């Protein structure tokens, strides 16, 4: 079982990671999450341009035996989705923090960033 936690990311207790770059943020699922789900076979992505609130369901990630909802770690507008996942969802297993990212958000409420978990806090819950 792999459990890598990257030091330059923020996390949620529902196992999403978030990489903040100015006003934008990339979101994916953690190494721990992909390792728990195993063999990811299908990803349902949201539409670009959609406004989302923190905690909204933004994606569905399916393994052979499970269906998992992914929640928005932060409010904003979806400005990009990882189209590669439609053909090759398994890249989430292979590269959860890089090639396997899910969506990119334009952050609407920066104060929510302080609610996210630091790497050390996330390590404690996995």
């Amino acid at each position, binding site marked *: 079982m792999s459990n890598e936690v990257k030091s330059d990311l923020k996390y949620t207790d529902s196992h999403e990671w978030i990489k903040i770059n100015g006003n934008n943020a990339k979101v994916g699922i953690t190494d721990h999450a992909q390792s728990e789900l195993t*063999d990811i*076979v*299908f990803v349902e992505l949201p539409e670009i341009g959609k406004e989302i609130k923190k905690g909204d369901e933004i994606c569905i990630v*399916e393994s052979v035996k499970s269906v998992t909802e992914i929640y928005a770690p932060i409010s904003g507008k979806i400005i990009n989705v990882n189209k590669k996942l439609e053909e090759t969802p398994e890249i989430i297993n292979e590269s959860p923090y890089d090639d396997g990212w899910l969506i990119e958000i334009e952050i609407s409420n920066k104060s929510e960033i302080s609610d996210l978990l630091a790497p050390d806090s996330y390590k404690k819950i996995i």
Partner: protein
Amino acid sequence: MLYRIIDKYFFEILNYINYIHAWGKIMEKRSPIFNLQKTLGARFTEFAGFEMPIQYSSIKEEHLAVRRSVGIFDVSHMSNVWITGPGAEKLISLTTLEDASKIGNNKSQYTAILRKDGTVIDDTIFMHLDDKYMMIPNAGADEVVTKWLNDKAKEHKIAASAENVSNDYVILAIQGPKSRDTLQKLTKTDIKTIGFFGCQYANLAGVDCIISHTGYTGELGYELQITPPKKAEGVFKKILEAGKDYGIKPIGLGARDTLRLEKGFILAGNEFKGGRTPLEAVMSYFINWDHEFIGKDKLLKQKEKGDYERLTSMICIDKGVPRQNCEIKKDGKKIGVVTSGTMSPCLNTGIAMGYVHPDYREKESIVEIMIRDKAVKAKVVRPPIVPKEWANQN
């Protein structure tokens, strides 16, 4: 008033006893080789009251190992019932779709046990072993089936009895094109001589067991009934060793489910849920109409009427993974419900089985499976969804 109080306490006490009983069962119902499975990296799940491996490495890898080479499954959650006595054959014929007199010694048969209304209590295999029969009901169906058989023997004055010996046996399934070569290394019995659905006593890996040419994967495969349970761990290890050159893998229930679904095999808990008849489950091939059995009159009536829903296999054309309870539609109108669905590891597309109205299940016809409000197009096919030749072609 006093009566009501007693009544109330009676039920509380009864519930408490049931609770202890259930808890005791849960504690027991780990496979006798649980610890070995743990060291092999198994992740466990609860299935019909059993804590069983859902997967070891990955469902996909395990699935493909069985299609291409060989895998070993612990299926000791399945039940074992001995049916004995001079009327054993008669009892089986009365309570199943099969005329047991047609099943010779060392042969086994897939069949189903019906209620009086024609719906399936359980689907099962029975093995004819000299003067007795071993039945393999599904996980958790052992008590219901045993009681049903004994009740029917009594009602019909048949000199036979059923004994639930599920806790005395471990069942291992060795499945895949290399299963025969793997097992042959461990026994003097010429496994080639055991025909499809043949069964016999044998000594394998130094342990006396029952070996049958049966399985739930659609591949060449065998199943072993091992008693006492403590002998199973050694057999499991020796099979892993014997299959090493073929890349044998231990397989969990996750891949067991995807393997059977690709072949269109029924999973009792899914496909019989809510009460389905063998005609609806498209088991006509297994109905022997030339003998009397419980539920037959209802089946004949249903057959004559002909307008019943039938279990139907589908392959998704659009992307998406159908799951149990997804609605099946045609031009926006509901025509059925998915009972089992998954992503096929061989085809890399969604596949499903479900009950569909007879007007809409013509081969190649296009239906829509509703996955989270999205209509995913699917094509009706006849099982097996994944053909036998798949491994040679891919």
